[in-house]
């Protein structure tokens, strides 16, 4: 009986059960614990069943990695979660590429490279290295080390095409006879690293949720490819699960923005900004104050809060909870409508609101909440713009036409809080602001909500 592989089957089962328990916030924490137990099983099984392991080196490596991991996990702020996931994706991809490289070099020395090994190693090195460099660029953009604007240079697309050809040719050379050509192998590493960079720099900050999800998927695929190199079921199964997860999230993010993956990745290249030319129609807005907003809210029974990323930027999550609690005290029903791309990564806004102790039962996603607006008295839009723009439903000339939006305009009254009249990411005017049932309250979200809270209490 092969106990090591039996242990890998057990850990795969634990991973699957763990993810299954993520289907509800009630069981999710337990699910995470189950998945980490699966990891522990896999590590212990590996440590005891392979001969000639360099334990000293392993302990040093796990010690360093453990400390760094703990520091990252305990220090990171919830707003920085996208950066952290990005950099972790990079480490995962990097680890896979390093393992595959080590396999190549040792088999090279022993003259034991086979066609199958070379193909799987090349795949693992290519995807792993690309994930590593791409993730670090994504990290840099999200953290503000690199400009969040798309970085473009002349001849970018031909250059990328050249890199792609380079990868195909060198992989072919390596696999077709010259299995042990070290220089070709190094060339593959270098080209993969470059591709990770050139494919990520032209993508703007607003599209980063798609990129992180995609890199998440790659890190899983890289682990699977490494599993093929080592003929290890544990890596293959776990990698496939992560690959599938990343792909699903990528798809959800693309749908949330109504864009194809190809458009996100190559969209910024060669296309001049088309946003500015969209309708320059003047809209008349009604500007209002917090005590007027308080009076509108007093007359309401059902209130839906629509938070955008501007809310998190203003650090106003706690202030919004206080307002919501006050409204509930006054006997009103309060819900939160969360658009899929409200944060900087899938599900980000939910985490930011949960951090402010907002109960998860009140957090509703797009599909659940859109029917709720019909009988909603007041929708409060906080720092959100494009995701509530009705033009997405009817204006075929709008750049966001077709994007799924929250139908806030169907509520009786819409209160919109914004810092200024500046347009959103897509750079377009929002007709919602000029609607008869919309009132604008300008100002910083946190200040506005704090004053509103006071006004509500004084009613």
């Amino acid at each position, binding site marked *: 009986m092969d106990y090591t592989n039996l242990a890998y089957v057990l850990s795969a089962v634990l991973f*699957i059960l763990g*993810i299954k328990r993520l289907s509800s916030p009630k069981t999710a924490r337990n699910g995470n614990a189950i998945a980490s137990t699966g990891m522990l099983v896999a590590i212990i099984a590996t440590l005891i069943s392979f001969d000639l392991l*360099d334990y000293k080196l392993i302990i040093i490596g796990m010690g360093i990695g453990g400390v760094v991991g703990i520091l990252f996990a305990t220090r990171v702020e919830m707003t920085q979660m996208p950066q952290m996931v990005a950099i*972790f994706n990079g480490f995962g991809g990097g680890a896979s590429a390093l*393992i595959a490289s*080590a396999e190549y070099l040792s088999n090279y020395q022993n003259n034991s490279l086979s066609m199958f090994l070379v193909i799987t190693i090349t795949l693992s090195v290519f995807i792993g290295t690309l994930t590593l460099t791409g993730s670090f660029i994504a990290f840099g953009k999200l953290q503000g080390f690199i400009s969040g604007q798309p970085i473009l240079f002349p001849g970018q697309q031909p250059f990328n095409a050249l890199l792609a050809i380079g990868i195909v040719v060198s992989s072919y050379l390596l696999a077709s006879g010259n299995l042990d050509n070290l220089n070709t192998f190094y060339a593959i590493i270098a080209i993969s690293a470059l591709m990770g960079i050139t494919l990520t720099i032209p993508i703007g900050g607003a599209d980063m949720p798609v990129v992180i999800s995609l890199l998440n998927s790659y890190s*899983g695929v890289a682990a699977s490819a490494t599993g093929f190199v080592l003929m290890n079921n544990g890596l293959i199964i776990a990698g496939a699960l*992560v690959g599938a997860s990343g792909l699903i999230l990528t798809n959800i993010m693309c749908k949330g923005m109504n864009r194809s993956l190809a458009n996100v990745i190559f969209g910024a290249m060669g296309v001049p900004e088309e946003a500015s030319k969209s309708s320059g129609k003047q809209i008349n807005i009604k500007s209002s104050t917090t005590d007027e907003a308080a009076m509108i809210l007093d007359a309401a029974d059902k209130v839906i809060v629509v938070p955008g990323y501007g809310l998190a930027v203003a650090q106003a999550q706690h202030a919004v909870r206080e307002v919501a609690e006050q409204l509930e005290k006054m006997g009103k029903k309060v819900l939160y409508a969360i658009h899929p791309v409200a944060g900087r990564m899938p599900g980000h806004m939910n985490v930011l609101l*949960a951090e402010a102790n907002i*109960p998860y039962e009140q957090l509703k996603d797009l599909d659940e909440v859109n029917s709720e607006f019909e009988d909603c008295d007041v929708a409060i839009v906080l720092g959100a713009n494009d995701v509530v723009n009705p033009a997405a439903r009817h204006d075929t000339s709008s750049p966001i036409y077709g994007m799924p939006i929250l139908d806030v305009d169907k509520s009786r009254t819409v209160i919109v809080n914004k810092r200024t009249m500046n347009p959103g990411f897509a750079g377009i005017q929002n007709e919602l602001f000029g609607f008869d049932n919309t009132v604008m309250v300008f100002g910083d979200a946190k200040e506005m909500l704090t004053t509103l809270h006071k006004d509500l209490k004084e009613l």
Partner: protein
Amino acid sequence: MDINILTVFILAIFVGFEIITKVPPTLHTPLMSGSNAISGIAIVGAIISTKINSDISTWLGLIAVIFATINCVGGFLVTDRMLKMFKRK
């Protein structure tokens, strides 16, 4: 090529799609950091590659162990930290 491992790979992808589509959008960030931690399974390969007794490969294995451990430890811990915050009324 061993057809068995390809079978395992393809079935795992299907299982992955089945269970992950059931995760609600509310939990997509923890799903991502948690699956990130699971991709730290590369640590198994990293441990194995330290036994390869050529200098350079062993060093590559060490760096891989560090990277993969960061992924596992950091990933599971931060996921737990987030999930702790999801409370009912």
